């Protein structure tokens, strides 16, 4: 049964993964067993294949979707059992910028890696980011911008967090075509990632701190 769930995730079969997970739970398999022996190993393989260049991004995303499907019945049970998600991430494209494909890619991959993701969408104002940090208490705030004219809104958000007294409660990570590590350092962000896969790694590192 666990092997079949793992295979369903590898194949990106969301419905099958969810159904098999439900059936396994009924048979008395523990949620932690399903997570540790089927879902996590499947996503590990997906990650390795991706690193080797053998798995394409859409194929990885569809596996992440299947993983999410399997998590639906598991989540409440895991929470009851005291198993926490890896971390919570609030993510959005900054004010004035409509480009969401890169940001959504990061969001999907973070979810696939076991993060809880709150996606605020595009043209997110500093106020909206601050509000989300205050309400949802994420460990990580992730911002994206495609344009040189909109990336300047990133430090605006960081300033707003500081003014709201929230800056030390959240790690801020940034990305997008014109953004660089140097820029992240300049504006006092906690991290920068050049692509979705490194964003997931970065989030993993920051979540452990």
């Amino acid at each position: 049964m666990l092997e079949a769930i793992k295979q369903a995730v590898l194949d990106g079969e969301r419905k099958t993964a969810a159904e098999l997970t439900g059936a396994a739970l009924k048979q008395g398999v523990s949620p932690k067993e399903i997570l540790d022996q089927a879902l996590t190993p499947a996503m590990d393989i997906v990650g390795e294949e991706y690193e080797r260049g053998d798995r394409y991004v859409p194929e990885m995303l569809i596996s992440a979707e299947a993983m999410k499907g399997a998590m639906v019945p598991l989540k409440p049970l895991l929470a009851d059992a005291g198993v926490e998600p890896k971390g919570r991430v609030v993510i959005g494209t900054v004010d004035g910028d409509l480009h969401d494909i890169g940001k959504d890619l990061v969001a999907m991959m973070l979810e696939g890696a076991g993060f809880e993701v709150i996606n605020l969408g595009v043209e997110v104002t500093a106020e909206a980011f601050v509000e989300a940090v205050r309400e949802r208490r994420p460990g990580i705030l992730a911002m994206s911008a495609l344009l040189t004219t909109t990336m300047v809104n990133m430090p605006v958000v960081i300033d707003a967090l500081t003014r709201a007294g929230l800056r030390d409660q959240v790690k801020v990570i940034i990305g997008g075509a014109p953004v660089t590590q140097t820029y992240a350092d300049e504006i006092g962000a906690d991290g920068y990632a050049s692509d979705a896969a490194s964003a997931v790694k970065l989030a993993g590192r920051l979540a452990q701190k």
Partner: protein
Amino acid sequence: MAIESRRIERLCVLSADDVCTIDGKARSLLRTTGIDAGAEPFLEIFSGIGAKVGQRGRVTFPERVIDDALDSVPNRVLLYGRGGALPLDLGGDKVYLGTGGAAVRILDLEDGRARDPTLDDLADLAWLVENLDNIDFFLRPVVARDIASEALDLCKFYTSLANTSKHVMGSVGSVNTARDVIELASLIAGGRDSLVERPIISFITSWLVSPLTLDRQVSNVLVTIAEQGIPVALSTAPVAGSTAPATLAGLLVQVHAEELSGIVLSQAIKKGAPVLYGPVPAVADFRTMGYAGGAIESALLNVACVQLADWIDVPIYADAGLTDSKLSDVQAGYEKGMNILLLAMAGGDYVHHSAGMLESMLTVSYEQYVIDNDIIGMAIRALQGIEISDQTLATSVIEGVGPGGHYLTHPHTLAHIRTDEYFVPATVDRQGRAAWEKKGAVDGRERARQIAREILHRERKGFILEDVDREIRNRFDLTGCLRGPGNE
């Protein structure tokens, strides 16, 4: 370098039936799905010409609305420089290739390191392009990072116009800067009417974010530009597999629909507004979803777009010359060589991104402009084909020399070796090994750097007259722009 006479057939990757099918599917997509036009003033603009405004900003387009726009949109657009060259004549058989991009990095000419571009770099690049004969126009290639973003639009147009006489194209961030830039260009052109009659600048607006969603801020800029009658490229940049279908044909249907909707918008703003059909179609590398500008599929898409533009008879702002390499290496050479040649063969009217670009659109380098100047020259030479006439067939010359003779000093040889018959690239090495070693055994990149340095050290002439410059500086605060004439 425009070709004077084309002797080879235009390259097609789609049959006439394919083109017709894609155009039909795109129109049907606009009829049924339409675009998300957001809010006013666009809903009113669209409904004013008979497009249907649905719920939540959705606008669909009856066939007649599209046909009306295609009737009024100009089929020919002339873009002017301020040197002796003829204007760029877009919409016919001519092919022009020039720079492009809004790169956020530049490779330093001396140490090769990637750094932030400055306004000085923009001035140097404009001067470099001024001196590279095969590059036909100067589309502002870098985002100067040493200038506040509010001042950037005006400064970049000023700096470009001050350092090259070639046609200058760029984008603007807001309605106000659009007005300022038009006023600045009017002062240089000798009045607003002269500017409209002989546009020495033109604009790019990325008015639509794929798939099928109007960018309201940029579209407002488009409204301002179209109202003034300055030529504008309607740029939309779908990527296969993320913001467009993963199949090349599917992407073409979507991008053609997007472009048609843009033409409709421009003509709704002002009948007869000059626009360029401006698809920037691309594919991604599915291993990373990273942009793959140098991919051969990108070239196929762009050639297909030339055919689609031709079908609706609107001049095209096409795209060739991207590479995904980070430096001027072998990959840059073969990616650029292939896609520039293919687009030139297809007959793209105004082909941007054709010089200087690296890392898709993110980086430029000085030496790459010099190298691409050669690639463009070779592509254009290929288009000219082989001239056949009594003079070139040279049968009487062959008879005169006879068996066993030679042609080295024949008048016919001397009459032809310095003509268009031969293109001589500046960066290639054709010496023998010993001579090459004696000259330092350097590669093409280093030779290109040497040429770039030589051009940058040439005595510069300003391209904005002193009294005009004074007038401009009285009108606008150009504190950051020191590279006008007399300000070296």
